[in-house]
């Protein structure tokens, strides 16, 4: 029995020892684990420490980052705003671009049209140039023709020699408005007398010149062929002949009252200068709508005529009566016959020279030699009219006895 108890106790002891050893082993393991844990814990503490340190760093870094972040945020906002602006501008630019494209299209169309117009204008210009050349040619042709006609008109006018040999102190200021003139003058000398006429046919230029041809021929007939020397009779005859020539006796009246027949005729101042056997000079004057001026001792005497023209129309329907003046002349008398062209000249202020001024000029110059009088009258009227066009044909005849 003791051995059995010993064995049991030994067994129990061995179990105990085993248990204790296990426990120790466990404890050791636990201690190891524990020290591992401790180590770990330490490690973790170390880690935690470093973590704390880094956490602080982090905090600092975080602060920095936050600041940076704030800045970045602000920048980002600014950039965002800028971007918004840019976006708006961009939108605007897009709209602008679209507009420009539309405008460009319009411009292109306009340019196209302009080009077409330019081509058309160019063609027109060429056409107009051709027309211009054609008109200039025709005009030149007409001017040439009328210039030639002037030679014919000049040919029928009295020559300077003819007039000067009978009226030594005389001048004629003859200024047609256009190339040929509706004014003309006529002169003839016969034994004991000479006839001088200053005539203004209706119109000027070509129609006036035609009338002047007719008038000239008729006066030739009356004075040279028929030998009439009485101015009153000459004018009466002239009136009769012109009416026949132009068939004016029957003048149709249009329905509404305007007389449509031609009213052509002429105004005339006609004198017969008679030299008597006892050396006196007598001037016989008759006029058709034109007066005679006589300047004697610086005084101007006007001899009026009947207010009737040769041919043409008259204010009344009574038969025409031409008034005759018989004027005994004195030495030094200056006599002037003229058409209305001189006094009717307009200046650039649209004022007529007027008869009054014309008379004043005649009084001023009458004592000068004839050629100087002519020069003065010519210059005076040129200065009066300046650049104005000549209003009418001008004819002024002056002579002294």
């Amino acid at each position, binding site marked *: 029995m003791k051995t059995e108890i010993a064995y049991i106790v030994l067994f129990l002891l061995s179990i105990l020892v085993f248990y204790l050893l296990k426990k120790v082993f466990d404890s050791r393991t636990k201690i190891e684990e524990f020290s591992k844990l401790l180590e770990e814990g330490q490690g973790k503490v170390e880690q935690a420490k470093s973590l704390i340190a880094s956490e602080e760093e982090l905090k600092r870094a975080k602060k920095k980052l936050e600041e940076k972040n704030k800045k970045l945020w602000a920048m980002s906002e600014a950039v965002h705003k800028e971007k918004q602006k840019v976006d708006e501008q961009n939108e605007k630019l897009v709209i602008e671009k679209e507009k420009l494209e539309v405008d460009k299209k319009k411009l292109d169309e306009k340019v196209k049209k302009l080009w077409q117009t330019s081509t058309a204008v160019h063609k027109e210009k060429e056409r107009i140039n051709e027309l211009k050349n054609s008109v200039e040619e025709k005009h030149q042709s007409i001017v040439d023709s009328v210039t030639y006609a002037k030679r014919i008109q000049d040919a029928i006018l009295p020559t300077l020699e003819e007039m000067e040999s009978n009226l030594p102190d005389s001048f004629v200021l003859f200024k047609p408005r256009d190339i040929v003139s509706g004014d003309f003058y006529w002169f003839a000398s016969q034994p004991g007398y000479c006839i001088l006429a200053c005539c203004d046919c209706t119109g000027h230029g070509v129609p006036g010149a035609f009338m002047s041809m007719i008038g000239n021929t008729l006066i030739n007939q009356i004075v040279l062929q028929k030998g009439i020397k009485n101015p009153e009779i000459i004018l009466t005859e002239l009136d009769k002949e012109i009416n026949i020539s132009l068939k004016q006796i029957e003048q149709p009246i249009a329905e*509404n009252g*305007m007389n449509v027949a031609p009213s052509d005729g002429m105004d005339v101042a006609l004198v017969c200068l008679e030299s008597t056997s006892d050396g006196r000079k007598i001037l016989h004057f008759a006029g058709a709508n034109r007066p005679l001026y006589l300047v004697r001792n610086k005084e101007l005497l006007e001899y009026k005529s009947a*207010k009737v023209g040769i041919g043409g129309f008259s*204010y009344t329907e009574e038969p025409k009566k031409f008034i005759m003046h018989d004027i005994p002349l004195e030495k030094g008398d200056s006599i002037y016959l003229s058409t209305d062209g001189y006094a009717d000249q307009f200046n650039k202020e649209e004022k007529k020279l*007027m008869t009054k001024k014309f008379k004043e000029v005649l009084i001023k110059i009458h004592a000068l030699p004839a050629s100087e009088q002519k020069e003065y009258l010519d210059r005076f009227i040129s200065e009066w009219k300046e650049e104005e066009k000549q209003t009418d044909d001008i004819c002024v005849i002056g002579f002294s006895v």
Partner: protein
Amino acid sequence: MEALLIEPTKNSPSIHFDPVTGKFSISGKSISENTPKFYQPVFDWLENYGKEAAKETRLSVQLDYFNTSSAKVLLDLFKRFEKLANTDVEIEWFYNEDDEDMQEAGENYQSISKVKFTIKSIQ
């Protein structure tokens, strides 16, 4: 009927005929190369006016210058005015006080006018 209004040119006068008031005026220059052509519309218009004239017809004429063919047409025109029925016609002729020629022309027309024809000078 409408008034007759013709604008002046350097060769033709201004014409203003008012059928309602009976005030008529011709002024400026009458130196057309073809005077009948210019005045034809005036005569035509007068033809119509004559059918329903105003109670009084006053024509005032103020011309600086007119050529022979115009003088003749003016004569015809004045005669036409004289013939207007059912209206009291008066013609006034104005001339520049220095212009003897216009004064004389007015006197000529006055001497043969059958209606009241006055001549007035202006400055």
